[in-house]
Protein backbone atom coordinates (compact mmCIF):
# COMPACT_ATOMS: atom_id res chain seq x y z
CA UNK A 1 0.00 0.00 0.00
CA UNK A 2 2.48 2.58 -1.19
CA UNK A 3 0.41 5.70 -1.69
CA UNK A 4 1.61 9.27 -1.92
CA UNK A 5 0.15 12.69 -2.28
CA UNK A 6 -0.47 13.51 -5.91
CA UNK A 7 -2.02 16.72 -7.22
CA UNK A 8 -4.50 16.25 -10.04
CA UNK A 9 -3.08 16.50 -13.56
CA UNK A 10 -6.36 17.33 -15.21
CA UNK A 11 -7.77 20.05 -13.00
CA UNK A 12 -5.64 22.65 -11.30
CA UNK A 13 -5.54 22.90 -7.53
CA UNK A 14 -7.43 19.64 -7.14
CA UNK A 15 -6.35 16.51 -5.34
CA UNK A 16 -8.53 13.54 -6.24
CA UNK A 17 -8.26 9.78 -5.68
CA UNK A 18 -7.08 8.72 -9.12
CA UNK A 19 -8.53 5.23 -8.85
CA UNK A 20 -12.05 6.65 -8.78
CA UNK A 21 -11.74 8.89 -11.80
CA UNK A 22 -9.31 6.91 -13.94
CA UNK A 23 -8.56 9.87 -16.20
CA UNK A 24 -4.84 9.17 -16.73
CA UNK A 25 -3.91 5.64 -17.64
CA UNK A 26 -0.28 5.99 -16.58
CA UNK A 27 -1.24 6.68 -12.97
CA UNK A 28 -3.15 3.43 -12.54
CA UNK A 29 -1.73 0.05 -11.66
CA UNK A 30 -3.00 -3.33 -12.81
CA UNK A 31 -6.08 -4.48 -10.89
CA UNK A 32 -5.88 -7.82 -9.09
CA UNK A 33 -8.84 -10.15 -8.76
CA UNK A 34 -8.68 -12.90 -6.13
CA UNK A 35 -11.45 -15.53 -6.24
CA UNK A 36 -11.91 -18.02 -3.47
CA UNK A 37 -14.68 -19.79 -5.35
CA UNK A 38 -17.39 -18.79 -7.80
CA UNK A 39 -19.38 -16.76 -5.38
CA UNK A 40 -16.61 -15.04 -3.37
CA UNK A 41 -14.18 -12.64 -4.93
CA UNK A 42 -12.06 -9.66 -4.06
CA UNK A 43 -10.95 -6.95 -6.51
CA UNK A 44 -8.03 -4.68 -5.64
CA UNK A 45 -7.48 -1.63 -7.86
CA UNK A 46 -4.63 0.70 -7.15
CA UNK A 47 -3.25 4.02 -8.33
CA UNK A 48 -0.63 6.51 -7.28
CA UNK A 49 -2.63 8.05 -4.47
CA UNK A 50 -5.50 5.70 -3.74
CA UNK A 51 -6.55 2.09 -3.43
CA UNK A 52 -9.97 0.54 -3.89
CA UNK A 53 -10.82 -2.90 -2.46
CA UNK A 54 -14.16 -4.46 -3.42
CA UNK A 55 -15.48 -7.64 -1.87
CA UNK A 56 -18.29 -9.96 -2.87
CA UNK A 57 -19.36 -12.13 0.08
CA UNK A 58 -20.60 -15.68 -0.09
CA UNK A 59 -24.38 -15.89 -0.43
CA UNK A 60 -25.60 -19.48 -0.47
CA UNK A 61 -29.36 -19.02 -0.45
CA UNK A 62 -32.04 -16.36 -0.68
CA UNK A 63 -32.04 -15.68 3.05
CA UNK A 64 -28.31 -15.01 3.10
CA UNK A 65 -28.75 -12.82 0.06
CA UNK A 66 -31.25 -10.59 1.84
CA UNK A 67 -29.33 -10.56 5.10
CA UNK A 68 -26.05 -9.66 3.43
CA UNK A 69 -27.61 -6.90 1.40
CA UNK A 70 -29.35 -5.33 4.39
CA UNK A 71 -26.38 -5.67 6.70
CA UNK A 72 -23.86 -4.21 4.25
CA UNK A 73 -26.21 -1.44 3.27
CA UNK A 74 -26.51 -0.57 6.97
CA UNK A 75 -22.73 -0.35 7.24
CA UNK A 76 -22.26 1.58 4.01
CA UNK A 77 -24.79 4.19 5.07
CA UNK A 78 -22.57 4.89 8.06
CA UNK A 79 -19.44 5.07 5.92
CA UNK A 80 -18.56 8.50 7.38
CA UNK A 81 -17.55 7.01 10.68
CA UNK A 82 -15.52 4.22 9.08
CA UNK A 83 -13.59 6.72 6.94
CA UNK A 84 -12.13 4.13 4.58
CA UNK A 85 -15.50 2.66 3.56
CA UNK A 86 -17.12 3.63 0.28
CA UNK A 87 -20.80 4.59 0.36
CA UNK A 88 -21.73 2.57 -2.69
CA UNK A 89 -20.09 -0.72 -3.58
CA UNK A 90 -18.54 -1.09 -7.01
CA UNK A 91 -20.83 -2.63 -9.64
CA UNK A 92 -20.86 -6.39 -9.19
CA UNK A 93 -19.64 -6.41 -5.59
CA UNK A 94 -21.18 -6.12 -2.16
CA UNK A 95 -18.92 -3.67 -0.38
CA UNK A 96 -15.99 -1.43 -1.26
CA UNK A 97 -13.21 0.34 0.61
CA UNK A 98 -11.42 3.43 -0.65
CA UNK A 99 -8.06 4.13 1.00
CA UNK A 100 -6.26 7.32 0.03
CA UNK A 101 -2.82 8.70 0.83
CA UNK A 102 -4.43 10.99 3.40
CA UNK A 103 -5.65 7.95 5.32
CA UNK A 104 -2.14 6.50 5.20
CA UNK A 105 -0.74 9.72 6.57
CA UNK A 106 -3.15 9.78 9.48
CA UNK A 107 -3.23 6.10 10.33
CA UNK A 108 -0.72 3.31 10.39
CA UNK A 109 -0.63 1.23 7.22
CA UNK A 110 -0.44 -2.09 9.00
CA UNK A 111 -3.45 -1.17 11.14
CA UNK A 112 -5.44 -0.25 8.01
CA UNK A 113 -4.64 -3.63 6.52
CA UNK A 114 -5.56 -5.34 9.78
CA UNK A 115 -8.85 -3.47 9.78
CA UNK A 116 -9.81 -4.60 6.28
CA UNK A 117 -8.84 -8.20 7.01
CA UNK A 118 -10.73 -8.23 10.32
CA UNK A 119 -13.71 -6.72 8.55
CA UNK A 120 -13.75 -9.48 5.95
CA UNK A 121 -13.47 -12.16 8.61
CA UNK A 122 -16.16 -10.48 10.68
CA UNK A 123 -18.66 -10.21 7.83
CA UNK A 124 -18.94 -13.93 7.24
CA UNK A 125 -19.33 -14.61 10.95
CA UNK A 126 -21.96 -11.90 11.37
CA UNK A 127 -24.05 -13.13 8.47
CA UNK A 128 -24.04 -16.72 9.70
CA UNK A 129 -25.03 -15.53 13.16
CA UNK A 130 -27.84 -13.45 11.75
CA UNK A 131 -29.09 -16.36 9.67
CA UNK A 132 -29.02 -18.61 12.71
CA UNK A 133 -30.94 -16.15 14.83
CA UNK A 134 -33.54 -15.56 12.10
CA UNK A 135 -34.11 -19.30 11.76
CA UNK A 136 -34.33 -19.78 15.52
CA UNK A 137 -36.79 -16.93 15.94
CA UNK A 138 -38.91 -18.21 13.06
CA UNK A 139 -39.01 -21.65 14.60
CA UNK A 140 -39.97 -20.33 18.03
CA UNK A 141 -42.70 -18.08 16.67
CA UNK A 142 -44.12 -20.86 14.50
CA UNK A 143 -44.17 -23.30 17.45
CA UNK A 144 -45.97 -20.81 19.67
CA UNK A 145 -48.51 -19.93 17.02
CA UNK A 146 -49.36 -23.49 16.11
CA UNK A 147 -49.59 -24.49 19.79
CA UNK A 148 -52.99 -22.90 20.00
CA UNK A 149 -54.32 -25.29 17.39
CA UNK A 150 -53.24 -28.46 19.14
Amino acid at each position, binding site marked *: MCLQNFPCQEVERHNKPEVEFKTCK*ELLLNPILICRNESEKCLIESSINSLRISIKVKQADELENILAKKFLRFLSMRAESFQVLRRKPVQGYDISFLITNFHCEEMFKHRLIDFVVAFMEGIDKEISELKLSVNTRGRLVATEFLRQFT
Partner: protein
Amino acid sequence: MSMVALCPNNNEVHIYKASMDSNSVWERVYVLEKHEQLVSGIDWAPKSNKIVTCSHDRNSYVWSLEGDQWQATLVILRLNRAATSVEWSPQENKFVVGSGAKTVCVCYYEEDNNWWVSKLIRKKHHSTITSVAWHPNNVLLATTSTDSKCRIFSAFIKGVDARKDATTAFGDVKFGEELIQLDLACGWSFGVHWSPSGNSLAYVGHDSTIHFVTDVGPNPRARSISLRHLPLRDVLFLSETRLVAGGFDCNPMLFGSDKSRIWEFISFLDEVKRPAETKTDTVFAAAKGKFKWLGSEPFEENAPTTTHENCITMIRSLAPLSERNPEKSIERFSTSG
Protein backbone atom coordinates in the same frame (compact mmCIF):
# COMPACT_ATOMS: atom_id res chain seq x y z
CA MET B 1 24.63 25.70 14.26
CA SER B 2 22.49 23.95 11.72
CA MET B 3 19.10 24.86 10.48
CA VAL B 4 16.51 22.77 8.75
CA ALA B 5 13.45 23.89 6.83
CA LEU B 6 10.51 21.56 6.59
CA CYS B 7 6.83 21.53 5.80
CA PRO B 8 4.52 19.73 8.23
CA ASN B 9 2.15 18.57 5.48
CA ASN B 10 0.33 21.87 5.22
CA ASN B 11 0.88 25.21 3.54
CA GLU B 12 3.55 26.50 5.95
CA VAL B 13 7.30 26.14 6.10
CA HIS B 14 8.89 25.76 9.51
CA ILE B 15 12.56 26.47 10.14
CA TYR B 16 14.23 24.72 13.05
CA LYS B 17 17.61 25.36 14.57
CA ALA B 18 19.92 23.17 16.60
CA SER B 19 23.53 23.15 17.66
CA MET B 20 26.00 20.58 16.44
CA ASP B 21 25.96 18.32 19.55
CA SER B 22 24.24 15.03 19.09
CA ASN B 23 21.71 15.52 21.87
CA SER B 24 20.65 19.07 21.29
CA VAL B 25 16.97 19.76 20.83
CA TRP B 26 15.65 21.27 17.62
CA GLU B 27 13.71 24.44 18.26
CA ARG B 28 11.44 26.17 15.79
CA VAL B 29 12.57 29.67 14.94
CA TYR B 30 10.55 30.81 11.94
CA VAL B 31 7.28 29.98 10.24
CA LEU B 32 6.91 31.04 6.62
CA GLU B 33 3.32 31.38 5.52
CA LYS B 34 2.57 32.45 2.00
CA HIS B 35 1.36 29.45 0.08
CA GLU B 36 -2.29 28.54 -0.12
CA GLN B 37 -1.93 24.81 -0.61
CA LEU B 38 0.46 22.07 0.40
CA VAL B 39 4.12 23.02 0.08
CA SER B 40 5.57 20.28 -2.09
CA GLY B 41 9.22 21.26 -2.39
CA ILE B 42 11.76 23.23 -0.34
CA ASP B 43 15.42 23.86 -1.08
CA TRP B 44 17.92 25.94 0.85
CA ALA B 45 20.85 27.53 -0.94
CA PRO B 46 23.77 27.56 1.53
CA LYS B 47 25.90 30.23 -0.12
CA SER B 48 23.30 32.87 -0.82
CA ASN B 49 21.09 31.85 2.14
CA LYS B 50 17.93 31.82 0.10
CA ILE B 51 15.11 29.33 0.38
CA VAL B 52 12.93 28.44 -2.56
CA THR B 53 9.57 26.77 -1.98
CA CYS B 54 7.00 25.47 -4.41
CA SER B 55 3.49 24.38 -3.76
CA HIS B 56 0.40 22.69 -5.13
CA ASP B 57 -1.12 26.13 -5.66
CA ARG B 58 1.09 26.55 -8.82
CA ASN B 59 3.27 29.17 -7.14
CA SER B 60 6.83 29.38 -6.00
CA TYR B 61 8.46 31.87 -3.65
CA VAL B 62 12.09 32.75 -3.04
CA TRP B 63 12.67 33.70 0.59
CA SER B 64 15.62 35.76 1.74
CA LEU B 65 16.56 36.64 5.27
CA GLU B 66 16.44 40.37 5.85
CA GLY B 67 17.34 41.21 9.39
CA ASP B 68 15.17 38.93 11.45
CA GLN B 69 12.42 38.22 8.93
CA TRP B 70 12.18 36.09 5.87
CA GLN B 71 10.86 38.07 2.92
CA ALA B 72 9.14 36.30 0.06
CA THR B 73 9.52 37.15 -3.59
CA LEU B 74 7.00 35.67 -5.97
CA VAL B 75 8.38 33.75 -8.91
CA ILE B 76 6.46 33.99 -12.18
CA LEU B 77 6.24 30.34 -13.05
CA ARG B 78 3.43 30.38 -15.62
CA LEU B 79 2.29 26.97 -14.55
CA ASN B 80 -1.28 25.82 -14.79
CA ARG B 81 -0.93 22.77 -12.53
CA ALA B 82 0.66 22.02 -9.18
CA ALA B 83 4.41 22.24 -8.68
CA THR B 84 5.94 19.06 -7.32
CA SER B 85 9.63 19.60 -6.66
CA VAL B 86 12.28 22.33 -6.67
CA GLU B 87 16.07 22.53 -6.49
CA TRP B 88 18.69 25.28 -6.56
CA SER B 89 21.43 24.92 -9.13
CA PRO B 90 24.97 24.36 -7.77
CA GLN B 91 25.93 27.99 -8.35
CA GLU B 92 22.61 29.18 -6.95
CA ASN B 93 21.84 31.53 -9.79
CA LYS B 94 19.04 29.35 -11.13
CA PHE B 95 16.54 26.90 -9.84
CA VAL B 96 14.29 24.35 -11.46
CA VAL B 97 10.68 23.46 -10.65
CA GLY B 98 8.98 20.28 -11.79
CA SER B 99 5.22 20.27 -12.12
CA GLY B 100 2.09 18.30 -12.77
CA ALA B 101 1.58 20.27 -15.99
CA LYS B 102 4.17 18.01 -17.64
CA THR B 103 6.55 20.97 -17.88
CA VAL B 104 9.79 21.90 -16.19
CA CYS B 105 10.49 25.55 -15.31
CA VAL B 106 14.02 26.83 -15.05
CA CYS B 107 14.04 30.16 -13.25
CA TYR B 108 16.73 32.78 -13.14
CA TYR B 109 16.98 36.24 -11.63
CA GLU B 110 16.50 39.21 -13.89
CA GLU B 111 18.36 42.20 -12.50
CA ASP B 112 16.50 44.83 -14.55
CA ASN B 113 13.07 43.91 -13.30
CA ASN B 114 14.13 42.62 -9.89
CA TRP B 115 12.24 39.37 -10.08
CA TRP B 116 12.67 35.73 -10.97
CA VAL B 117 11.67 34.76 -14.49
CA SER B 118 11.11 31.28 -15.80
CA LYS B 119 11.78 29.46 -19.00
CA LEU B 120 9.65 26.41 -19.59
CA ILE B 121 10.61 23.08 -21.05
CA ARG B 122 7.30 21.95 -22.46
CA LYS B 123 8.28 19.06 -24.65
CA LYS B 124 8.89 15.44 -24.02
CA HIS B 125 7.27 14.72 -20.69
CA HIS B 126 4.15 12.59 -20.89
CA SER B 127 3.12 12.89 -17.29
CA THR B 128 3.72 14.65 -13.99
CA ILE B 129 7.34 15.35 -13.14
CA THR B 130 8.15 13.92 -9.74
CA SER B 131 11.72 14.98 -9.08
CA VAL B 132 14.47 17.18 -10.53
CA ALA B 133 18.23 17.33 -9.99
CA TRP B 134 21.05 19.57 -11.20
CA HIS B 135 24.37 18.34 -12.53
CA PRO B 136 27.37 19.96 -10.78
CA ASN B 137 28.21 21.91 -13.95
CA ASN B 138 25.09 24.07 -13.46
CA VAL B 139 23.82 23.35 -16.97
CA LEU B 140 22.51 19.81 -17.16
CA LEU B 141 19.29 18.82 -15.49
CA ALA B 142 17.79 15.39 -14.80
CA THR B 143 14.07 14.85 -14.31
CA THR B 144 12.00 11.83 -13.34
CA SER B 145 8.34 11.43 -14.09
CA THR B 146 5.32 9.23 -13.55
CA ASP B 147 5.68 8.07 -17.14
CA SER B 148 8.50 5.91 -15.70
CA LYS B 149 11.30 7.67 -17.57
CA CYS B 150 14.29 9.71 -16.50
CA ARG B 151 15.40 12.42 -18.89
CA ILE B 152 18.42 14.69 -19.03
CA PHE B 153 17.98 18.17 -20.45
CA SER B 154 20.19 21.10 -20.98
CA ALA B 155 19.23 24.18 -18.99
CA PHE B 156 21.76 26.57 -20.41
CA ILE B 157 20.48 30.13 -20.21
CA LYS B 158 22.19 32.85 -22.20
CA GLY B 159 23.20 35.69 -19.96
CA VAL B 160 23.21 33.62 -16.82
CA ASP B 161 25.56 30.79 -17.67
CA ALA B 162 29.00 31.40 -19.06
CA ARG B 163 29.67 30.04 -22.55
CA LYS B 164 32.33 27.65 -21.32
CA ASP B 165 29.86 25.81 -19.10
CA ALA B 166 27.85 24.79 -22.10
CA THR B 167 30.45 22.41 -23.38
CA THR B 168 29.60 19.25 -21.57
CA ALA B 169 30.04 15.64 -22.54
CA PHE B 170 27.30 16.25 -25.06
CA GLY B 171 28.91 19.19 -26.78
CA ASP B 172 27.29 22.56 -27.18
CA VAL B 173 23.62 22.29 -26.35
CA LYS B 174 20.73 24.72 -26.41
CA PHE B 175 18.19 25.29 -23.68
CA GLY B 176 15.48 22.69 -23.35
CA GLU B 177 17.05 20.08 -25.53
CA GLU B 178 16.57 16.56 -24.34
CA LEU B 179 19.91 14.80 -24.32
CA ILE B 180 19.16 11.35 -22.96
CA GLN B 181 16.01 9.49 -22.12
CA LEU B 182 16.44 6.57 -19.72
CA ASP B 183 13.75 3.95 -19.80
CA LEU B 184 14.99 1.55 -17.15
CA ALA B 185 12.09 1.49 -14.72
CA CYS B 186 8.79 -0.27 -15.26
CA GLY B 187 6.93 1.81 -12.74
CA TRP B 188 6.75 5.53 -11.94
CA SER B 189 10.15 7.00 -11.28
CA PHE B 190 11.05 9.25 -8.38
CA GLY B 191 14.07 10.61 -6.58
CA VAL B 192 16.88 11.42 -9.03
CA HIS B 193 20.32 12.63 -7.90
CA TRP B 194 23.71 13.20 -9.52
CA SER B 195 26.96 12.11 -7.93
CA PRO B 196 29.30 14.89 -6.70
CA SER B 197 31.44 14.77 -9.84
CA GLY B 198 28.49 14.52 -12.17
CA ASN B 199 29.74 11.29 -13.63
CA SER B 200 26.94 9.13 -12.30
CA LEU B 201 23.23 9.43 -11.82
CA ALA B 202 20.82 7.39 -9.73
CA TYR B 203 17.06 7.22 -9.66
CA VAL B 204 14.42 4.88 -8.23
CA GLY B 205 11.34 3.30 -9.70
CA HIS B 206 8.07 2.29 -8.10
CA ASP B 207 8.72 -1.30 -9.15
CA SER B 208 11.19 -1.45 -6.22
CA THR B 209 14.20 -0.86 -8.40
CA ILE B 210 17.08 1.52 -8.16
CA HIS B 211 19.04 2.43 -11.26
CA PHE B 212 22.62 3.64 -11.45
CA VAL B 213 23.88 5.22 -14.64
CA THR B 214 27.59 5.89 -14.93
CA ASP B 215 29.57 7.76 -17.56
CA VAL B 216 26.53 9.83 -18.37
CA GLY B 217 27.21 10.95 -21.89
CA PRO B 218 26.58 9.68 -25.38
CA ASN B 219 27.31 6.11 -24.22
CA PRO B 220 26.06 5.64 -20.70
CA ARG B 221 26.35 2.41 -18.74
CA ALA B 222 23.46 1.46 -16.54
CA ARG B 223 22.96 -0.96 -13.70
CA SER B 224 19.59 -1.70 -12.15
CA ILE B 225 19.06 -3.40 -8.83
CA SER B 226 15.71 -4.96 -8.05
CA LEU B 227 14.96 -4.93 -4.34
CA ARG B 228 12.87 -7.32 -2.35
CA HIS B 229 11.62 -4.47 -0.22
CA LEU B 230 8.98 -1.83 -0.72
CA PRO B 231 9.68 0.89 -3.29
CA LEU B 232 12.04 3.76 -2.56
CA ARG B 233 11.19 7.42 -2.87
CA ASP B 234 14.37 9.50 -2.75
CA VAL B 235 18.14 9.10 -3.11
CA LEU B 236 21.17 11.10 -2.05
CA PHE B 237 24.77 10.59 -3.12
CA LEU B 238 27.04 10.81 -0.08
CA SER B 239 30.20 10.56 -2.16
CA GLU B 240 31.27 9.04 -5.45
CA THR B 241 30.93 5.54 -4.08
CA ARG B 242 28.16 5.78 -1.50
CA LEU B 243 24.48 6.47 -1.84
CA VAL B 244 21.60 6.48 0.63
CA ALA B 245 18.01 5.90 -0.37
CA GLY B 246 14.77 5.95 1.59
CA GLY B 247 11.20 4.95 0.89
CA PHE B 248 8.16 3.02 1.96
CA ASP B 249 10.21 0.72 4.17
CA CYS B 250 10.70 3.65 6.55
CA ASN B 251 14.36 2.70 6.79
CA PRO B 252 17.22 4.43 4.92
CA MET B 253 19.25 2.00 2.80
CA LEU B 254 22.93 2.36 2.02
CA PHE B 255 24.35 1.42 -1.37
CA GLY B 256 27.98 1.40 -2.34
CA SER B 257 30.16 0.77 -5.32
CA ASP B 258 33.54 -0.87 -5.10
CA LYS B 259 36.61 -0.68 -7.30
CA SER B 260 34.94 -2.55 -10.11
CA ARG B 261 32.31 0.21 -10.11
CA ILE B 262 29.42 -2.19 -9.54
CA TRP B 263 26.79 -0.83 -7.17
CA GLU B 264 25.49 -3.09 -4.41
CA PHE B 265 23.17 -2.81 -1.46
CA ILE B 266 25.14 -2.59 1.78
CA SER B 267 22.78 -2.26 4.72
CA PHE B 268 19.84 -0.57 6.34
CA LEU B 269 20.87 2.45 8.34
CA ASP B 270 18.22 2.46 11.04
CA GLU B 271 18.56 -0.14 13.77
CA VAL B 272 15.39 -2.17 13.93
CA LYS B 273 14.25 -2.20 17.55
CA ARG B 274 13.50 -5.78 18.52
CA PRO B 275 10.58 -6.22 20.95
CA ALA B 276 12.43 -8.86 23.04
CA GLU B 277 14.62 -7.08 25.57
CA THR B 278 17.06 -9.90 26.30
CA LYS B 279 20.31 -9.92 24.39
CA THR B 280 20.61 -13.10 22.39
CA ASP B 281 24.10 -14.50 22.27
CA THR B 282 23.69 -17.91 20.77
CA VAL B 283 21.87 -18.84 17.62
CA PHE B 284 19.52 -21.10 19.59
CA ALA B 285 18.50 -18.34 21.94
CA ALA B 286 17.97 -16.03 18.99
CA ALA B 287 15.69 -18.56 17.32
CA LYS B 288 13.76 -19.03 20.55
CA GLY B 289 13.38 -15.30 20.87
CA LYS B 290 12.03 -15.13 17.35
CA PHE B 291 9.41 -17.80 18.08
CA LYS B 292 8.39 -16.02 21.23
CA TRP B 293 7.97 -12.82 19.29
CA LEU B 294 5.93 -14.51 16.60
CA GLY B 295 3.56 -15.99 19.14
CA SER B 296 2.60 -12.62 20.48
CA GLU B 297 -0.48 -10.70 19.43
CA PRO B 298 -0.66 -10.97 15.63
CA PHE B 299 -1.79 -7.41 15.11
CA GLU B 300 1.48 -6.02 16.40
CA GLU B 301 3.68 -8.21 14.24
CA ASN B 302 4.01 -5.74 11.46
CA ALA B 303 4.29 -2.75 13.71
CA PRO B 304 6.89 -0.23 12.57
CA THR B 305 10.10 -0.78 14.45
CA THR B 306 12.10 1.98 12.84
CA THR B 307 12.50 5.63 13.76
CA HIS B 308 10.28 6.70 10.90
CA GLU B 309 6.76 5.40 11.33
CA ASN B 310 5.68 6.11 7.81
CA CYS B 311 7.24 6.41 4.39
CA ILE B 312 10.43 8.47 3.98
CA THR B 313 9.75 11.05 1.29
CA MET B 314 12.90 13.16 1.05
CA ILE B 315 16.59 12.93 1.92
CA ARG B 316 18.81 16.03 1.95
CA SER B 317 22.34 16.62 3.06
CA LEU B 318 23.16 18.64 6.16
CA ALA B 319 26.74 19.34 5.19
CA PRO B 320 27.86 22.86 6.07
CA LEU B 321 29.41 25.08 3.44
CA SER B 322 33.02 24.16 4.05
CA GLU B 323 32.50 20.48 3.41
CA ARG B 324 31.11 20.92 -0.06
CA ASN B 325 33.91 19.53 -2.15
CA PRO B 326 33.91 16.32 -4.18
CA GLU B 327 36.51 14.43 -2.21
CA LYS B 328 34.83 14.62 1.13
CA SER B 329 31.70 12.60 1.56
CA ILE B 330 28.56 13.91 3.18
CA GLU B 331 28.39 12.59 6.70
CA ARG B 332 25.14 14.01 7.96
CA PHE B 333 21.85 14.00 6.16
CA SER B 334 18.25 14.46 7.13
CA THR B 335 15.32 12.27 6.16
CA SER B 336 11.76 13.45 6.28
CA GLY B 337 8.49 11.65 5.91
